[in-house]
Protein backbone atom coordinates (compact mmCIF):
# COMPACT_ATOMS: atom_id res chain seq x y z
CA UNK A 1 0.00 0.00 0.00
CA UNK A 2 1.31 3.48 -0.79
CA UNK A 3 2.15 6.05 1.88
CA UNK A 4 -0.19 8.93 1.18
CA UNK A 5 1.41 11.30 3.67
CA UNK A 6 4.73 11.72 5.43
CA UNK A 7 3.09 10.96 8.77
CA UNK A 8 1.80 7.65 7.44
CA UNK A 9 5.27 6.81 6.14
CA UNK A 10 6.77 7.56 9.57
CA UNK A 11 4.24 5.29 11.22
CA UNK A 12 4.93 2.43 8.82
CA UNK A 13 8.72 2.87 8.85
CA UNK A 14 9.55 4.67 12.09
CA UNK A 15 13.11 5.92 12.42
CA UNK A 16 14.88 6.71 15.69
CA UNK A 17 14.28 10.46 15.49
CA UNK A 18 10.55 10.02 14.94
CA UNK A 19 10.33 7.50 17.77
CA UNK A 20 12.06 9.93 20.15
CA UNK A 21 9.74 12.72 19.09
CA UNK A 22 6.65 10.65 19.77
CA UNK A 23 8.00 9.45 23.13
CA UNK A 24 8.54 13.05 24.19
CA UNK A 25 5.12 14.14 22.98
CA UNK A 26 3.07 11.51 24.82
CA UNK A 27 4.47 10.61 28.26
CA UNK A 28 3.33 7.22 29.55
CA UNK A 29 4.34 4.82 32.32
CA UNK A 30 7.92 3.54 31.99
CA UNK A 31 7.05 -0.08 31.20
CA UNK A 32 4.42 0.98 28.68
CA UNK A 33 7.03 3.21 27.07
CA UNK A 34 9.32 0.16 26.81
CA UNK A 35 6.64 -1.89 25.05
CA UNK A 36 5.63 0.85 22.61
CA UNK A 37 9.20 1.82 21.79
CA UNK A 38 10.11 -1.80 21.17
CA UNK A 39 7.05 -2.20 18.93
CA UNK A 40 8.09 0.75 16.80
CA UNK A 41 11.74 -0.30 16.59
CA UNK A 42 10.88 -3.70 15.22
CA UNK A 43 7.90 -2.58 13.10
CA UNK A 44 9.68 -2.36 9.77
CA UNK A 45 12.41 -4.84 10.62
CA UNK A 46 10.32 -7.92 11.24
CA UNK A 47 8.54 -9.92 8.57
CA UNK A 48 4.89 -10.84 8.53
CA UNK A 49 3.89 -12.74 11.66
CA UNK A 50 4.04 -16.51 11.39
CA UNK A 51 3.34 -18.85 14.25
CA UNK A 52 6.16 -21.32 14.68
CA UNK A 53 3.84 -24.00 16.05
CA UNK A 54 6.08 -26.78 14.75
CA UNK A 55 8.97 -25.82 17.03
CA UNK A 56 6.91 -24.34 19.85
CA UNK A 57 6.79 -27.52 21.89
CA UNK A 58 10.55 -28.13 21.80
CA UNK A 59 11.33 -24.50 22.64
CA UNK A 60 8.81 -24.56 25.46
CA UNK A 61 10.34 -27.79 26.72
CA UNK A 62 13.84 -26.25 26.75
CA UNK A 63 12.54 -23.14 28.51
CA UNK A 64 10.72 -25.11 31.19
CA UNK A 65 13.72 -27.36 31.85
CA UNK A 66 15.77 -24.23 32.41
CA UNK A 67 13.09 -22.43 34.46
CA UNK A 68 12.39 -25.41 36.75
CA UNK A 69 15.88 -26.90 36.86
CA UNK A 70 14.16 -30.25 36.19
CA UNK A 71 15.18 -32.44 33.28
CA UNK A 72 12.48 -35.11 33.55
CA UNK A 73 9.41 -33.01 32.97
CA UNK A 74 6.83 -34.01 30.36
CA UNK A 75 4.75 -31.83 28.03
CA UNK A 76 1.60 -33.32 26.51
CA UNK A 77 -1.42 -32.27 24.40
CA UNK A 78 -0.32 -28.83 23.16
CA UNK A 79 -3.34 -27.12 21.55
CA UNK A 80 -4.09 -23.71 20.14
CA UNK A 81 -7.05 -21.91 21.71
CA UNK A 82 -9.66 -19.97 19.75
CA UNK A 83 -11.68 -17.01 20.99
CA UNK A 84 -9.06 -14.39 21.85
CA UNK A 85 -8.41 -11.13 20.04
CA UNK A 86 -4.96 -10.12 21.17
CA UNK A 87 -2.58 -12.87 22.30
CA UNK A 88 -1.81 -16.27 20.83
CA UNK A 89 -2.97 -18.79 23.38
CA UNK A 90 -2.05 -22.44 23.76
CA UNK A 91 -2.87 -25.03 26.38
CA UNK A 92 -0.68 -27.96 27.35
CA UNK A 93 -0.28 -30.43 30.18
CA UNK A 94 2.92 -30.31 32.16
CA UNK A 95 4.17 -33.03 34.48
CA UNK A 96 6.84 -31.76 36.85
CA UNK A 97 7.56 -31.28 40.53
CA UNK A 98 6.03 -27.92 41.49
CA UNK A 99 7.22 -28.54 45.01
CA UNK A 100 10.17 -30.65 46.02
CA UNK A 101 9.49 -34.36 45.65
CA UNK A 102 5.83 -34.03 44.66
CA UNK A 103 5.32 -34.82 40.97
CA UNK A 104 2.13 -33.41 39.51
CA UNK A 105 0.42 -32.92 36.16
CA UNK A 106 -1.32 -29.63 35.52
CA UNK A 107 -3.03 -28.12 32.54
CA UNK A 108 -1.44 -24.74 31.78
CA UNK A 109 -2.08 -21.89 29.39
CA UNK A 110 0.62 -20.11 27.41
CA UNK A 111 -0.25 -16.52 26.50
CA UNK A 112 2.18 -15.20 23.92
CA UNK A 113 2.44 -11.88 22.09
CA UNK A 114 2.15 -11.92 18.30
CA UNK A 115 4.56 -9.64 16.37
CA UNK A 116 2.12 -6.78 16.96
CA UNK A 117 -1.09 -7.05 18.90
CA UNK A 118 -4.39 -5.18 18.96
CA UNK A 119 -3.22 -4.13 22.42
CA UNK A 120 0.52 -3.95 23.02
CA UNK A 121 1.04 -4.70 26.68
CA UNK A 122 3.70 -5.88 29.09
CA UNK A 123 3.74 -9.50 30.25
CA UNK A 124 5.52 -8.60 33.51
CA UNK A 125 2.76 -6.11 34.35
CA UNK A 126 0.20 -8.84 33.70
CA UNK A 127 2.11 -11.36 35.83
CA UNK A 128 2.56 -8.88 38.68
CA UNK A 129 -1.09 -7.88 38.83
CA UNK A 130 -2.27 -11.50 38.66
CA UNK A 131 -0.01 -12.34 41.60
CA UNK A 132 -1.15 -9.21 43.44
CA UNK A 133 -4.81 -10.10 42.99
CA UNK A 134 -4.40 -13.72 44.06
CA UNK A 135 -6.52 -14.14 47.18
CA UNK A 136 -8.37 -10.89 46.47
CA UNK A 137 -10.49 -11.96 43.50
CA UNK A 138 -10.39 -15.23 41.54
CA UNK A 139 -7.52 -15.18 39.05
CA UNK A 140 -5.38 -17.80 37.32
CA UNK A 141 -2.13 -18.71 39.06
CA UNK A 142 0.95 -17.41 37.25
CA UNK A 143 3.85 -19.85 36.98
CA UNK A 144 6.36 -18.26 34.62
CA UNK A 145 6.73 -15.07 32.64
CA UNK A 146 9.26 -13.89 30.07
CA UNK A 147 8.63 -10.23 29.20
CA UNK A 148 11.54 -10.15 26.75
CA UNK A 149 10.67 -13.17 24.65
CA UNK A 150 14.15 -14.64 24.24
CA UNK A 151 13.13 -18.25 24.67
CA UNK A 152 9.99 -18.57 22.57
CA UNK A 153 10.60 -15.71 20.17
CA UNK A 154 7.90 -13.50 21.71
CA UNK A 155 7.12 -12.34 25.27
CA UNK A 156 4.88 -14.77 27.11
CA UNK A 157 3.23 -15.75 30.34
CA UNK A 158 2.34 -19.25 31.57
CA UNK A 159 -0.52 -19.62 34.02
CA UNK A 160 -2.75 -22.34 35.38
CA UNK A 161 -5.63 -23.27 33.06
CA UNK A 162 -9.00 -22.99 34.73
CA UNK A 163 -12.01 -25.02 33.65
CA UNK A 164 -15.14 -22.98 33.14
CA UNK A 165 -17.28 -21.07 30.67
CA UNK A 166 -16.46 -17.69 29.16
CA UNK A 167 -19.12 -17.64 26.44
CA UNK A 168 -22.39 -19.51 27.05
CA UNK A 169 -23.54 -21.88 24.29
CA UNK A 170 -24.43 -19.97 21.15
CA UNK A 171 -22.68 -16.84 22.39
CA UNK A 172 -20.17 -16.69 19.56
CA UNK A 173 -19.35 -13.01 19.82
CA UNK A 174 -16.02 -11.48 18.81
CA UNK A 175 -14.00 -11.12 22.00
CA UNK A 176 -17.18 -11.56 24.07
CA UNK A 177 -18.71 -8.22 23.08
CA UNK A 178 -22.49 -8.05 23.41
CA UNK A 179 -22.74 -11.52 24.92
CA UNK A 180 -26.16 -12.96 25.77
CA UNK A 181 -26.81 -14.71 29.09
CA UNK A 182 -30.11 -16.43 29.86
CA UNK A 183 -32.13 -14.53 32.52
CA UNK A 184 -31.57 -17.07 35.31
CA UNK A 185 -27.84 -17.13 34.58
CA UNK A 186 -27.77 -13.33 34.69
CA UNK A 187 -29.44 -13.35 38.08
CA UNK A 188 -26.76 -15.61 39.48
CA UNK A 189 -23.78 -13.84 37.94
CA UNK A 190 -24.61 -10.14 38.15
CA UNK A 191 -23.91 -9.50 41.83
CA UNK A 192 -20.67 -11.47 41.67
CA UNK A 193 -19.62 -9.48 38.62
CA UNK A 194 -20.15 -6.14 40.37
CA UNK A 195 -18.79 -7.32 43.71
CA UNK A 196 -15.47 -8.42 42.21
CA UNK A 197 -14.96 -5.05 40.54
CA UNK A 198 -15.80 -3.28 43.77
CA UNK A 199 -13.21 -5.40 45.55
CA UNK A 200 -10.53 -4.75 42.90
CA UNK A 201 -10.98 -1.02 43.47
CA UNK A 202 -10.65 -1.41 47.22
CA UNK A 203 -7.44 -3.45 47.22
CA UNK A 204 -4.61 -1.59 48.95
CA UNK A 205 -2.08 -1.66 46.13
CA UNK A 206 0.58 0.23 48.06
CA UNK A 207 1.69 -3.03 49.67
CA UNK A 208 1.71 -5.15 46.52
CA UNK A 209 4.72 -5.85 44.29
CA UNK A 210 3.81 -3.74 41.27
CA UNK A 211 7.27 -2.54 40.29
CA UNK A 212 6.39 -2.47 36.59
CA UNK A 213 3.68 0.11 37.31
CA UNK A 214 4.21 3.84 37.84
CA UNK A 215 2.34 5.08 40.90
CA UNK A 216 0.31 8.25 40.44
CA UNK A 217 0.38 10.77 43.28
CA UNK A 218 -2.82 11.52 45.19
CA UNK A 219 -4.67 14.73 44.27
CA UNK A 220 -2.95 15.16 40.91
CA UNK A 221 -3.78 14.45 37.28
CA UNK A 222 -0.86 11.94 37.03
CA UNK A 223 -2.98 8.84 36.66
CA UNK A 224 -5.47 10.33 34.23
CA UNK A 225 -2.72 11.95 32.16
CA UNK A 226 -0.91 8.61 31.83
CA UNK A 227 -4.16 6.90 30.84
CA UNK A 228 -4.83 9.46 28.13
CA UNK A 229 -1.16 9.53 27.11
CA UNK A 230 -1.28 5.75 26.63
CA UNK A 231 -4.09 5.88 24.08
CA UNK A 232 -3.03 9.12 22.44
CA UNK A 233 0.38 7.67 21.86
CA UNK A 234 -1.09 4.47 20.44
CA UNK A 235 -3.29 6.50 18.10
CA UNK A 236 -0.36 8.52 16.80
CA UNK A 237 1.81 5.41 16.40
CA UNK A 238 -0.76 3.16 14.79
CA UNK A 239 -3.53 5.05 12.97
CA UNK A 240 -3.61 4.33 9.25
CA UNK A 241 -5.39 7.62 8.58
CA UNK A 242 -6.08 10.85 10.48
CA UNK A 243 -9.53 11.26 11.97
CA UNK A 244 -10.95 14.65 12.99
CA UNK A 245 -13.48 13.25 15.48
CA UNK A 246 -10.80 11.29 17.32
CA UNK A 247 -8.43 14.26 17.31
CA UNK A 248 -11.12 16.55 18.65
CA UNK A 249 -11.94 14.09 21.43
CA UNK A 250 -8.29 13.93 22.50
CA UNK A 251 -8.20 17.70 22.86
CA UNK A 252 -11.45 17.68 24.84
CA UNK A 253 -10.06 14.99 27.17
CA UNK A 254 -6.92 17.04 27.78
CA UNK A 255 -8.83 20.24 28.43
CA UNK A 256 -11.33 18.59 30.79
CA UNK A 257 -9.09 16.16 32.68
CA UNK A 258 -10.12 15.76 36.34
CA UNK A 259 -7.79 15.62 39.31
CA UNK A 260 -7.58 12.14 40.83
CA UNK A 261 -7.81 12.13 44.61
CA UNK A 262 -7.15 8.48 45.49
CA UNK A 263 -5.78 6.23 42.73
CA UNK A 264 -6.96 2.62 42.71
CA UNK A 265 -6.25 -0.51 40.69
CA UNK A 266 -8.15 -0.20 37.40
CA UNK A 267 -8.71 -3.48 35.53
CA UNK A 268 -8.98 -1.70 32.20
CA UNK A 269 -11.06 -4.29 30.30
CA UNK A 270 -13.73 -5.44 32.77
CA UNK A 271 -16.60 -6.92 30.76
CA UNK A 272 -18.23 -10.08 29.45
CA UNK A 273 -15.66 -12.23 27.70
CA UNK A 274 -13.13 -11.44 30.40
CA UNK A 275 -14.57 -13.49 33.23
CA UNK A 276 -15.22 -17.19 33.56
CA UNK A 277 -17.83 -19.11 35.55
CA UNK A 278 -18.23 -22.69 36.69
CA UNK A 279 -21.08 -25.10 35.97
CA UNK A 280 -22.57 -24.14 39.35
CA UNK A 281 -22.49 -20.52 38.24
CA UNK A 282 -19.73 -19.04 40.32
CA UNK A 283 -17.28 -16.65 38.74
CA UNK A 284 -14.01 -18.53 39.09
CA UNK A 285 -11.69 -16.20 37.16
CA UNK A 286 -11.35 -12.56 36.27
CA UNK A 287 -9.24 -12.60 33.10
CA UNK A 288 -7.33 -10.33 30.72
CA UNK A 289 -5.59 -7.94 33.09
CA UNK A 290 -3.17 -6.67 30.46
CA UNK A 291 -4.67 -3.16 30.39
CA UNK A 292 -4.56 -2.83 34.16
CA UNK A 293 -3.06 0.31 35.66
CA UNK A 294 -3.46 2.53 38.69
CA UNK A 295 -5.99 5.29 38.16
CA UNK A 296 -9.56 6.45 38.65
CA UNK A 297 -12.27 3.85 39.39
CA UNK A 298 -14.65 5.82 37.19
CA UNK A 299 -12.52 4.69 34.26
CA UNK A 300 -13.58 1.07 34.85
CA UNK A 301 -17.19 2.04 35.58
CA UNK A 302 -17.53 4.02 32.36
CA UNK A 303 -15.81 1.38 30.25
CA UNK A 304 -17.77 -1.52 31.68
CA UNK A 305 -21.09 0.24 31.15
CA UNK A 306 -20.39 1.49 27.61
CA UNK A 307 -23.49 0.80 25.56
CA UNK A 308 -21.49 -0.47 22.60
CA UNK A 309 -19.96 -3.21 24.78
CA UNK A 310 -23.31 -4.23 26.20
CA UNK A 311 -26.16 -6.43 25.08
CA UNK A 312 -29.32 -4.82 23.65
CA UNK A 313 -32.49 -6.13 25.26
CA UNK A 314 -34.61 -5.44 22.19
CA UNK A 315 -36.67 -2.73 23.88
CA UNK A 316 -34.10 0.07 23.53
CA UNK A 317 -32.23 -0.78 26.71
CA UNK A 318 -28.75 -2.25 27.02
CA UNK A 319 -27.47 -4.73 29.59
CA UNK A 320 -24.00 -4.03 30.94
CA UNK A 321 -21.92 -7.08 29.98
CA UNK A 322 -25.19 -8.83 29.23
CA UNK A 323 -26.01 -8.98 32.94
CA UNK A 324 -27.81 -5.90 34.27
CA UNK A 325 -28.85 -2.37 33.39
CA UNK A 326 -26.33 0.44 33.82
CA UNK A 327 -28.25 2.11 36.66
CA UNK A 328 -28.49 -1.18 38.52
CA UNK A 329 -24.79 -1.79 37.97
CA UNK A 330 -23.82 1.61 39.36
CA UNK A 331 -26.20 1.31 42.30
CA UNK A 332 -24.81 -2.08 43.26
CA UNK A 333 -21.26 -0.83 42.76
CA UNK A 334 -21.80 2.01 45.22
CA UNK A 335 -23.35 -0.41 47.67
CA UNK A 336 -20.58 -3.04 47.40
CA UNK A 337 -17.58 -0.70 47.18
CA UNK A 338 -18.53 2.23 49.39
CA UNK A 339 -17.28 4.48 46.56
CA UNK A 340 -19.65 7.12 45.31
CA UNK A 341 -20.21 7.60 41.61
CA UNK A 342 -19.61 11.14 40.37
CA UNK A 343 -21.76 11.63 37.26
CA UNK A 344 -19.55 14.39 35.85
CA UNK A 345 -16.49 12.23 36.17
CA UNK A 346 -18.36 9.26 34.73
CA UNK A 347 -19.23 11.38 31.70
CA UNK A 348 -15.54 12.29 31.28
CA UNK A 349 -14.63 8.61 31.29
CA UNK A 350 -17.47 7.76 28.91
CA UNK A 351 -15.69 9.97 26.39
CA UNK A 352 -12.34 8.49 27.40
CA UNK A 353 -13.64 4.93 26.99
CA UNK A 354 -15.13 5.54 23.57
CA UNK A 355 -11.85 7.19 22.60
CA UNK A 356 -9.91 4.17 23.86
CA UNK A 357 -12.21 1.73 22.04
CA UNK A 358 -11.79 3.76 18.85
CA UNK A 359 -8.01 3.78 19.18
CA UNK A 360 -7.84 0.02 19.72
CA UNK A 361 -10.36 -1.00 17.09
CA UNK A 362 -9.68 1.56 14.38
CA UNK A 363 -6.00 2.41 14.73
CA UNK A 364 -4.24 -0.66 16.12
CA UNK A 365 -6.45 -3.37 14.66
CA UNK A 366 -6.00 -1.85 11.19
CA UNK A 367 -2.27 -1.32 11.74
CA UNK A 368 -1.61 -4.92 12.77
CA UNK A 369 -3.51 -6.23 9.76
CA UNK A 370 -1.81 -3.67 7.49
CA UNK A 371 1.61 -4.97 8.59
CA UNK A 372 0.48 -8.65 8.63
CA UNK A 373 1.76 -8.73 12.19
CA UNK A 374 -0.69 -11.01 13.91
CA UNK A 375 -2.23 -14.46 13.73
CA UNK A 376 -5.63 -12.73 13.41
CA UNK A 377 -5.19 -10.41 10.42
CA UNK A 378 -8.67 -11.13 9.01
CA UNK A 379 -10.29 -10.54 12.38
CA UNK A 380 -8.33 -7.31 12.89
CA UNK A 381 -9.76 -5.88 9.67
CA UNK A 382 -13.23 -6.90 10.74
CA UNK A 383 -12.86 -5.28 14.18
CA UNK A 384 -12.42 -1.86 12.58
CA UNK A 385 -16.20 -2.05 12.15
CA UNK A 386 -16.53 -1.96 15.92
CA UNK A 387 -14.08 0.94 15.99
CA UNK A 388 -16.20 3.13 13.72
CA UNK A 389 -19.24 2.42 15.86
CA UNK A 390 -17.09 3.59 18.80
CA UNK A 391 -16.15 6.80 16.96
CA UNK A 392 -19.81 7.46 16.23
CA UNK A 393 -20.71 6.89 19.88
CA UNK A 394 -17.78 9.09 20.92
CA UNK A 395 -19.05 11.99 18.84
CA UNK A 396 -22.63 11.54 20.05
CA UNK A 397 -21.45 11.50 23.68
CA UNK A 398 -19.46 14.69 23.16
CA UNK A 399 -22.53 16.29 21.59
CA UNK A 400 -24.57 15.32 24.67
CA UNK A 401 -22.04 16.93 27.00
Amino acid at each position, binding site marked *: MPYYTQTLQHRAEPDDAWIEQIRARFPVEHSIDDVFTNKLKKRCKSAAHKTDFEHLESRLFDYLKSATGQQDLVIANPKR*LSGGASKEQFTFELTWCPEAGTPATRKLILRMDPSESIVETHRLREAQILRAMSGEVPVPEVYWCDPIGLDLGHPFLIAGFLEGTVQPDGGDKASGLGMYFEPDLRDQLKDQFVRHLAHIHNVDWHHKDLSAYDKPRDNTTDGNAWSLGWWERVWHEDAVEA*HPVVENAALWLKENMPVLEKPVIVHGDYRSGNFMYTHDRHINAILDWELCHIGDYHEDLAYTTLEILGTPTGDGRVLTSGLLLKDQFLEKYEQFSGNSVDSKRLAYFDVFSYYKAAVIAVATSSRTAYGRKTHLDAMMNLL*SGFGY*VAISALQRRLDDI
Partner: protein
Amino acid sequence: MSPEIEQFLAGMKKTIEEVVLPNLTDRFAQEQAGIVAATLGFLSTIQDKVFHYELLENQEYKRVLLDVLEICGEADGLSKPLRAACAKVEGHLQLDKPEDQTSLRPYPFIRGSNENMKEFLCEFIQLQPDMPAQIRTTFEARLKPFFKAIETRERSWVKGLGFDPEAAQQPDIGELLYADNYLRSAPFKP
Protein backbone atom coordinates in the same frame (compact mmCIF):
# COMPACT_ATOMS: atom_id res chain seq x y z
CA MET B 1 -15.61 -7.05 -17.83
CA SER B 2 -16.67 -10.39 -16.54
CA PRO B 3 -16.96 -12.01 -14.06
CA GLU B 4 -17.90 -8.99 -11.97
CA ILE B 5 -16.17 -8.55 -8.62
CA GLU B 6 -19.41 -9.39 -6.84
CA GLN B 7 -19.47 -12.76 -8.59
CA PHE B 8 -15.90 -13.54 -7.47
CA LEU B 9 -16.72 -12.63 -3.89
CA ALA B 10 -19.96 -14.59 -3.79
CA GLY B 11 -18.18 -17.66 -5.19
CA MET B 12 -15.42 -17.49 -2.60
CA LYS B 13 -17.90 -17.03 0.25
CA LYS B 14 -19.98 -20.01 -0.81
CA THR B 15 -16.90 -22.21 -1.15
CA ILE B 16 -15.65 -21.31 2.30
CA GLU B 17 -19.03 -21.76 3.94
CA GLU B 18 -20.09 -24.93 2.19
CA VAL B 19 -16.84 -26.73 1.42
CA VAL B 20 -14.02 -25.49 3.63
CA LEU B 21 -15.74 -24.82 6.96
CA PRO B 22 -17.61 -28.14 7.28
CA ASN B 23 -14.37 -30.02 6.72
CA LEU B 24 -12.23 -28.16 9.20
CA THR B 25 -11.73 -29.86 12.54
CA ASP B 26 -9.51 -27.34 14.34
CA ARG B 27 -11.58 -24.82 16.34
CA PHE B 28 -9.20 -21.94 15.68
CA ALA B 29 -9.17 -22.65 11.93
CA GLN B 30 -12.99 -22.82 11.92
CA GLU B 31 -13.18 -19.47 13.69
CA GLN B 32 -10.81 -17.81 11.22
CA ALA B 33 -12.54 -19.30 8.17
CA GLY B 34 -15.85 -17.97 9.51
CA ILE B 35 -14.30 -14.52 9.77
CA VAL B 36 -13.04 -14.73 6.19
CA ALA B 37 -16.54 -15.69 4.99
CA ALA B 38 -18.07 -12.78 6.92
CA THR B 39 -15.49 -10.41 5.42
CA LEU B 40 -16.32 -11.56 1.90
CA GLY B 41 -20.01 -10.96 2.61
CA PHE B 42 -19.21 -7.44 3.79
CA LEU B 43 -17.05 -6.71 0.75
CA SER B 44 -19.97 -7.68 -1.48
CA THR B 45 -22.07 -4.92 0.03
CA ILE B 46 -19.51 -2.12 -0.39
CA GLN B 47 -17.20 -2.99 -3.28
CA ASP B 48 -19.13 -0.96 -5.85
CA LYS B 49 -19.30 2.14 -3.63
CA VAL B 50 -15.68 2.65 -2.58
CA PHE B 51 -14.78 5.14 -5.32
CA HIS B 52 -17.83 7.32 -4.71
CA TYR B 53 -17.28 7.21 -0.95
CA GLU B 54 -13.79 8.67 -1.43
CA LEU B 55 -15.07 11.15 -4.00
CA LEU B 56 -17.72 12.41 -1.61
CA GLU B 57 -15.14 12.74 1.16
CA ASN B 58 -12.86 14.63 -1.23
CA GLN B 59 -15.54 17.21 -1.85
CA GLU B 60 -16.57 17.43 1.80
CA TYR B 61 -13.00 17.96 3.04
CA LYS B 62 -12.35 20.58 0.40
CA ARG B 63 -15.48 22.42 1.51
CA VAL B 64 -14.61 22.34 5.19
CA LEU B 65 -11.00 23.36 4.62
CA LEU B 66 -12.03 26.25 2.39
CA ASP B 67 -14.36 27.36 5.19
CA VAL B 68 -11.52 27.08 7.72
CA LEU B 69 -9.31 29.20 5.51
CA GLU B 70 -12.07 31.78 5.35
CA ILE B 71 -12.56 31.71 9.12
CA CYS B 72 -8.84 32.10 9.76
CA GLY B 73 -8.61 34.79 7.10
CA GLU B 74 -10.95 36.95 9.16
CA ALA B 75 -8.70 36.84 12.22
CA ASP B 76 -6.04 39.33 13.16
CA GLY B 77 -2.76 38.14 14.59
CA LEU B 78 -3.03 34.43 13.84
CA SER B 79 -0.27 32.40 15.49
CA LYS B 80 2.63 31.18 13.40
CA PRO B 81 1.53 27.50 13.54
CA LEU B 82 -1.97 28.46 12.39
CA ARG B 83 -0.60 30.52 9.53
CA ALA B 84 1.62 27.59 8.56
CA ALA B 85 -1.39 25.25 8.66
CA CYS B 86 -3.32 27.61 6.37
CA ALA B 87 -0.39 27.73 3.95
CA LYS B 88 -0.29 23.92 3.77
CA VAL B 89 -3.96 23.77 2.85
CA GLU B 90 -3.58 26.48 0.23
CA GLY B 91 -0.64 24.59 -1.28
CA HIS B 92 -2.57 21.33 -1.35
CA LEU B 93 -5.60 22.89 -3.00
CA GLN B 94 -3.32 23.91 -5.83
CA LEU B 95 -2.53 20.24 -6.40
CA ASP B 96 -6.11 19.02 -6.05
CA LYS B 97 -8.10 22.08 -7.03
CA PRO B 98 -11.73 22.31 -5.92
CA GLU B 99 -12.86 23.21 -9.42
CA ASP B 100 -10.98 20.33 -11.11
CA GLN B 101 -12.84 17.28 -12.38
CA THR B 102 -11.65 15.09 -9.52
CA SER B 103 -14.04 12.33 -10.54
CA LEU B 104 -11.79 11.66 -13.53
CA ARG B 105 -8.74 11.15 -11.32
CA PRO B 106 -7.51 7.64 -10.40
CA TYR B 107 -8.56 6.24 -7.05
CA PRO B 108 -5.08 6.53 -5.38
CA PHE B 109 -4.92 10.24 -6.23
CA ILE B 110 -8.28 10.91 -4.56
CA ARG B 111 -7.52 8.69 -1.58
CA GLY B 112 -4.10 10.35 -1.16
CA SER B 113 -5.59 13.81 -1.36
CA ASN B 114 -8.20 12.88 1.23
CA GLU B 115 -5.58 11.51 3.62
CA ASN B 116 -3.66 14.77 3.37
CA MET B 117 -6.76 16.89 3.90
CA LYS B 118 -7.72 14.84 6.96
CA GLU B 119 -4.31 15.50 8.46
CA PHE B 120 -4.63 19.23 7.72
CA LEU B 121 -7.99 19.42 9.45
CA CYS B 122 -6.62 17.49 12.43
CA GLU B 123 -3.79 19.99 12.67
CA PHE B 124 -6.31 22.83 12.93
CA ILE B 125 -8.17 20.87 15.61
CA GLN B 126 -4.96 20.46 17.61
CA LEU B 127 -4.31 24.17 17.23
CA GLN B 128 -7.68 25.25 18.66
CA PRO B 129 -6.08 26.48 21.91
CA ASP B 130 -4.04 28.86 19.70
CA MET B 131 -7.14 30.35 18.09
CA PRO B 132 -8.62 33.67 19.23
CA ALA B 133 -11.85 32.91 21.17
CA GLN B 134 -14.23 34.11 18.46
CA ILE B 135 -12.40 32.18 15.77
CA ARG B 136 -12.47 29.04 17.87
CA THR B 137 -16.21 29.37 18.45
CA THR B 138 -16.85 29.79 14.72
CA PHE B 139 -14.50 26.91 13.93
CA GLU B 140 -16.27 24.61 16.41
CA ALA B 141 -19.66 25.56 15.02
CA ARG B 142 -18.49 24.76 11.50
CA LEU B 143 -17.16 21.38 12.55
CA LYS B 144 -20.26 20.24 14.42
CA PRO B 145 -22.34 19.27 11.34
CA PHE B 146 -19.20 18.00 9.64
CA PHE B 147 -18.52 15.61 12.50
CA LYS B 148 -22.14 14.49 12.47
CA ALA B 149 -21.90 13.69 8.77
CA ILE B 150 -18.68 11.73 9.28
CA GLU B 151 -19.98 9.54 12.08
CA THR B 152 -23.22 8.81 10.26
CA ARG B 153 -21.40 7.96 7.03
CA GLU B 154 -18.80 5.73 8.69
CA ARG B 155 -21.35 3.93 10.80
CA SER B 156 -23.40 3.16 7.71
CA TRP B 157 -20.28 1.99 5.90
CA VAL B 158 -19.49 -0.65 8.55
CA LYS B 159 -23.11 -1.57 9.29
CA GLY B 160 -22.71 -4.93 7.57
CA LEU B 161 -19.90 -6.01 9.88
CA GLY B 162 -22.37 -6.83 12.63
CA PHE B 163 -21.01 -4.81 15.54
CA ASP B 164 -23.62 -2.08 15.61
CA PRO B 165 -26.37 -2.53 18.20
CA GLU B 166 -28.30 0.21 16.38
CA ALA B 167 -27.80 -1.23 12.90
CA ALA B 168 -31.52 -1.28 12.20
CA GLN B 169 -31.68 2.48 12.71
CA GLN B 170 -28.67 3.28 10.49
CA PRO B 171 -29.28 4.18 6.85
CA ASP B 172 -27.68 1.96 4.22
CA ILE B 173 -24.55 3.50 2.79
CA GLY B 174 -26.18 3.65 -0.65
CA GLU B 175 -28.93 5.87 0.74
CA LEU B 176 -26.35 8.24 2.17
CA LEU B 177 -24.16 8.41 -0.89
CA TYR B 178 -26.81 8.79 -3.55
CA ALA B 179 -30.00 10.74 -4.18
CA ASP B 180 -31.91 10.18 -7.41
CA ASN B 181 -29.06 7.91 -8.54
CA TYR B 182 -26.45 10.67 -8.27
CA LEU B 183 -23.72 11.24 -5.70
CA ARG B 184 -25.16 13.62 -3.12
CA SER B 185 -22.23 15.98 -2.84
CA ALA B 186 -22.35 18.50 -5.66
CA PRO B 187 -19.03 19.15 -7.44
CA PHE B 188 -17.47 22.62 -7.25
CA LYS B 189 -18.26 24.91 -10.13
CA PRO B 190 -15.30 25.63 -12.42
